[in-house]
């Protein structure tokens, strides 16, 4: 078997990095997103003043951006999907809001012994260039993986398989919020709250969603919106 030395790998990485023509960066779009982030941060800070809920510390960490000079904590919210700036191809996202504690972040808790119920609203906003056509929210078993595709072809541990779901609900009205109510799951632990969604865009994401289905392209996504913590 041939031996590949470190220098060879380094030079391959450099070549790979240098090859191809880099697409242009739309600086106006970058600035627009930055301004959006600033405004989001201000809103979060304003909301912070009125919050007296458990988990406030987590929200403070999210809202006092940059005070610690840590770029990772720079603008964030309870939305779980990074916003894309690729023109026309912004992926859609969904955010979770707990009815009992509006504004709380991605972690929601239940007491296993209390047989309590939790109502979450998942908000799935459309964007000018993409429209949600379906969203399914799943509370999956701990350790479930995220995969997309036909259910019978998903890996055994996939959150998309019914046997790995404690509960699930499909959004019937795209773009609107809806609720998931969960009775206390069986055992204490952390349960991922997973969103499976389907959306349409223009082909090549080159503008608003056309009304003609032949000119639309469909995409699907799966991501973890949050965590349901069941306390013993």
């Amino acid at each position: 078997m041939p031996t590949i030395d470190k220098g060879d790998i380094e030079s391959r990485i450099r070549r790979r990095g240098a090859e191809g023509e880099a697409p242009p960066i739309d600086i106006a779009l970058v600035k627009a997103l930055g301004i959006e982030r600033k405004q989001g941060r201000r809103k979060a800070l304003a909301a912070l003043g009125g919050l007296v809920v458990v988990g406030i510390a987590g929200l403070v960490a999210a809202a006092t951006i940059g005070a610690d000079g840590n770029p990772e904590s720079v603008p964030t919210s309870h939305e779980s999907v990074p916003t894309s700036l690729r023109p026309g191809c912004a992926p859609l996202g969904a955010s979770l809001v707990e009815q009992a504690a509006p504004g709380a972040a991605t972690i929601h808790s239940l007491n296993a012994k209390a047989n309590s119920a939790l109502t979450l609203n998942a908000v799935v906003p459309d964007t000018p260039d993409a429209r949600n056509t379906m969203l399914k929210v799943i509370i999956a078993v701990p350790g479930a993986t995220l995969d997309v595709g036909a259910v019978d072809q998903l890996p055994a541990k996939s959150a998309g398989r019914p046997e790995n779901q404690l509960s699930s609900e499909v959004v019937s009205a795209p773009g609107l919020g809806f609720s998931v109510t969960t009775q206390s799951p069986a055992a204490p632990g952390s349960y991922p709250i997973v969103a499976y969604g389907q959306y349409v865009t223009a082909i090549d994401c080159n503008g608003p969603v056309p009304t003609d289905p032949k000119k639309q392209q469909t995409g699907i996504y799966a991501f973890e919106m949050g965590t349901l913590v069941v306390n013993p």
Partner: protein
Amino acid sequence: VPDAASFEGFVALQGEGLLRSARLLTGSWHGGEDLTQETLARLFVAWARIREPAAATAYARRTMVRLYVRNRARHWSGEVPSHPLPDVASQEHEDPDTDLASVMAVLPPRQRAVLVLRFYDDLSVADTAIALRCRPGTVKSQTAKALAAIRSSLATVEARRNEDANNRQG
């Protein structure tokens, strides 16, 4: 000549380099564009607090790798093509650099980030450790693991290719 002290100047001078690093991290131009634009947007928010262009570059690299590692850790599976993928062999598969890309794609995010920061961005072990918020020893061990994994996978791919070529000739 772009003014490096302005945000626009910074993007003009450093944007392409950041985009190429992001492409190496994510494995595609699309992923690289998203990561770069998110990074630059955050840099734009923080620009008033940054006084030196060198600090802006370091800030942008730190933001980029941390965003990348964090997003990968969240298991974001991203957009997936809804059209069937072609099953014909691509000419690209004969390219050793394409082999590298496919081998890097299966590395854990931190190992991949270490390789890009050290071997593409030319960061020292110490600077890589700062960017990834870990100890220099961790950077060294992650580098060693990543190189071992790449070496092994590439050697296997290339040995198989040579074997196929020999079989075709024979």
